[in-house]
């Protein structure tokens, strides 16, 4: 029997009013635009990321794509011209692990949709819960981040992420790729998530280890079940005479994972756990991406040998251990890069996704070459998630996600002059600029 809870009408009205008072007051996102126009950004220093820097060039944007890049590129008639003398063009930055669109105010449960209940949430996918009007979206993109992986967080298997362009009237308009990956919190070793403990839970290390082993076994069993489920499904497709199979949406969702078709992002921090993840990935034949990986540098050679990329971050955090060097969290990315591991950066956040470039910048201050730091917020995340044919660099044919800046976008003092997302010239306004303008004008 289905139970329906009916709220009295006045309550619903109040709830709606409250919600609109909360979120609707200043939208800060009246920027999803109409059809894309043709633009020519001229006299710009173009940092293509994948090719050489063009010192004085033109980028032409048409139909939402980059239609031409180069020094002697003609400007199409009717194009809106942006004179970028003294300015630089970069690809829009990509934050490789966030909660953007899923959360608004951390402490207000009603505004947070990041964590589902239960161990196995393989069948949930964030694209249905993205809020295009979230004030975080505009706040993030005006600092040059045009694209973000938005991922669910709860449980052992958290669910499926989506890669979003940070502009659009509907979630579907924002999606670059969905599902992008399956997200798993490695038991007992997550990147700040999926860990044990909390108030009143004082357990011995031995107990915690047993619990961890039990959960890893559980994960293994779920994946074996998914493989068997997939095989049975294929068998019945070939032979309808076989007995009918009960539908299990969770196992169904894992079939592409166990077949190595969908990448698995595993949140894991410590050396011991990363080693376990590497072994697990080989045994289960998974296409693994490590997220967090604060101690990944200690396992860099193995990660390189197995071509496992690491989404490093947040970089701006304390070292993992009391006796680590003070800069351990800052040097991690540089050491991984030196060992040849493919890296991208993440903020693992929503409200602070705008600070993505400073995570990369801090890694560059502590050993990562500057151009690698830039790649790790542009083309590398695109490569890791299989969307490098569409975003991550200033190249002809790619989605026109571009930023025009007065300097290095990883530097705090740099100002962003234009943000293009899918060819649209996005107004540089947000909830924050609107409140700023309002109170600047207070007599």
């Amino acid at each position, binding site marked *: 029997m289905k139970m329906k809870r009916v709220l009295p009408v006045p309550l619903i009205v109040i709830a709606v009013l409250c919600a609109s008072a*909360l979120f609707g007051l200043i939208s800060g996102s009246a920027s999803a635009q109409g059809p894309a126009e043709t633009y020519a950004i001229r006299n710009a220093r173009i940092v293509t990321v994948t090719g050489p820097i063009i010192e004085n060039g033109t980028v032409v944007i048409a139909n939402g794509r980059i239609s031409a890049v180069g020094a002697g590129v003609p400007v199409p008639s009717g194009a809106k011209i942006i004179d970028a003398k003294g300015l630089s063009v970069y690809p829009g930055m990509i934050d490789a692990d966030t909660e953007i669109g899923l959360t*608004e*105010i*951390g*402490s*207000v449960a009603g505004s*947070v949709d990041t964590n589902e209940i239960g161990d196995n949430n393989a069948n949930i996918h964030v694209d249905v819960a993205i809020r295009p009007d979230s*004030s*975080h979206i505009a706040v993030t993109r005006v600092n040059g981040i045009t694209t973000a992986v938005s991922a669910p967080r709860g449980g052992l298997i958290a669910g499926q992420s989506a890669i979003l362009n940070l502009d659009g009237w509907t979630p579907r308009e924002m999606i670059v790729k969905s599902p992008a990956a399956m997200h798993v919190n490695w038991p007992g*070793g997550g990147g*700040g*998530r999926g*860990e*044990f*403990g*909390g*108030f*009143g839970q004082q357990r*011995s*290390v*031995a107990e*915690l*280890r047993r619990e961890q082993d039990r959960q890893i076994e559980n994960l293994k069993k779920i994946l074996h079940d998914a493989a068997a489920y997939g095989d049975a499904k294929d068998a019945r497709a070939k032979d309808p005479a076989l007995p009918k199979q009960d539908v299990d949406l969770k196992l169904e969702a894992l079939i592409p994972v166990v077949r190595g078709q969908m990448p698995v992002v595993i949140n894991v921090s*410590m*050396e*011991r*756990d990363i080693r376990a993840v590497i072994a697990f990935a080989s045994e289960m034949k998974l296409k693994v991406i490590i997220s967090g990986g604060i*101690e990944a540098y200690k396992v860099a050679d193995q990660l390189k040998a197995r071509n496992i990329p690491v989404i490093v971050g*947040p970089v*701006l*955090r*304390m070292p*993992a251990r009391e*006796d680590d060097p*003070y800069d351990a969290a800052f040097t991690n990315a540089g050491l991984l890069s030196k060992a040849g591991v493919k890296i991208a950066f993440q903020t693992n*956040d*929503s*409200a602070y996704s*705008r*600070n993505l*470039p*400073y995570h990369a*910048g*801090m890694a*560059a*201050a*502590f050993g990562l070459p500057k151009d690698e730091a830039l790649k790790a917020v542009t083309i590398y995340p695109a490569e890791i998630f299989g969307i490098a044919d569409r975003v991550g660099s200033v190249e002809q044919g790619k989605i026109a996600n571009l930023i025009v800046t007065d300097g290095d976008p*990883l*530097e*705090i*003092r740099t*100002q962003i002059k234009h943000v293009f997302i899918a060819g649209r010239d996005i107004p540089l306004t947000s*909830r*924050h*600029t609107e*409140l*700023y303008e309002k*109170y*600047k004008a*207070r007599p």
Partner: protein
Amino acid sequence: MEGMMKKINVIFSLLLTVSMIASVFGQTRKETKLAAGASSVAAAAAPVETLIKNATIMTASHGTINNGSILIRNGKIAEIGPNLKPRDANARIIDATGKYVTPGIIDCHSHTGVDGNVNEGSLSVTSMVRIRDVIDPYSTSIYRELAGGTTTANVLHGSANSIGGQNAVLKWKIGKPVDEWFVPDAPPGIKFALGENPKRSNNQGLPPATARRYPATRMGVEETIREAFIKAKDYMREWQEYDAKKATDKHAIPPRRDLMLDALVEILQGKRFVHSHSYRDDEILMLLNLSDELGFHVQTLQHVLEGYKVAKEMAAHKTGGSTFSDWWAYKLEAYDAIPYNAALMASRGVIVSMNSDSDELARRLYLEAAKAMKYGGVAEQDALRMVTLNPAIQLGIDKHVGSIDVGKDADLVIFSQHPFSVYTVPEMTMIEGEIYFDRNEDLKQREALKREKAELIKRERDQRGGARPPRNERPDEPQPRPNESPRPNGTEPQR
């Protein structure tokens, strides 16, 4: 087993009581001891001169000096100029060619080194408790903050209470006795808190003792503060009457000493600075108006994320704002927070500082200052002041620290590049002319520390006759850690 735990608990609480009594009675005595300690430090510190030469000196008070030198003598800045020579033949010479020197970074809102909980959360008025009694000099964060150029901190009680505990203004002089850390003549201060935290509105899941309690509204917070001060005024009058009477009447009976009210009387007498945690414009105005009504001064508003809405009123009250560069959205009262807050408050004449409220963020406040330039176009020196001179002014210690001026303490940071560049690395941090962090030394020591650790583990194993120590005693293996979030994800830590 249970019996034993009980016994341990009893012993613990006895110890706690004893130490509380000791700290209460030791209050005056300790102060004298501290003053003596401080003078002995000054005598012992940096007997030789130090010369920093060929540096780009960002003074925070009088602009940037290119290719300049700073001569340090007896822990103080003795001279600043283009081409200085030390008097002492054995002076330490630091060639800072291509590097930048700034004043030591001052964090106007810290909880670093507080041993245990930052909140005495059982009452909403706890003006008797003192942070200075619970500083843990071995906190790892302290060295890490020095490695980020932070030399001085306003270590505050948490924000669970309308009127919290007393602060400690100190320098991170690791290796010295803690009594020598406190800035000797820093005006004492106290933490107040407004809004969601003293309301205890985000505390589901906390132990019941602190989860729910009066006040539970912003109205109740105001009444809690008003009531406490009305009591304090009565108490102050009783003492004044007694003091007037005792000269002529040797049988005059003194009022009963109340340590909670003592601290509030100091506020009323202008001897103790109020540093009030706050978020929303309404609660900020409430406190400013209440301070007018009761006759006390609010020295700083901390966090003050909606300060930009009422900056005019703050400036009129000569109340400083100590804010985050760009925190927002972690709770409802932080939803109108904007990164332009610092710039807007400053433009209305408020003295503004940028603080950390976080052991991690305290390591990179120099970059937080750069955000004031990005958001709202604050000039370079004004931005630098937000983490140096301005917090010094807010804490009443600007005659000693906060800028590179002759006669001030030689608290200095040497950066590899411009301190506002994301690519910069703090290379050396000095307090009163002594080097407390040197990146080169740090890098050199790493191999030795690794060897020492391996040796200790080996010795431990050998002592156990080759048997491996129990799992939770193997320092070479990762231990499951509690969730360490670099940001207040969800609810703000109870600060």
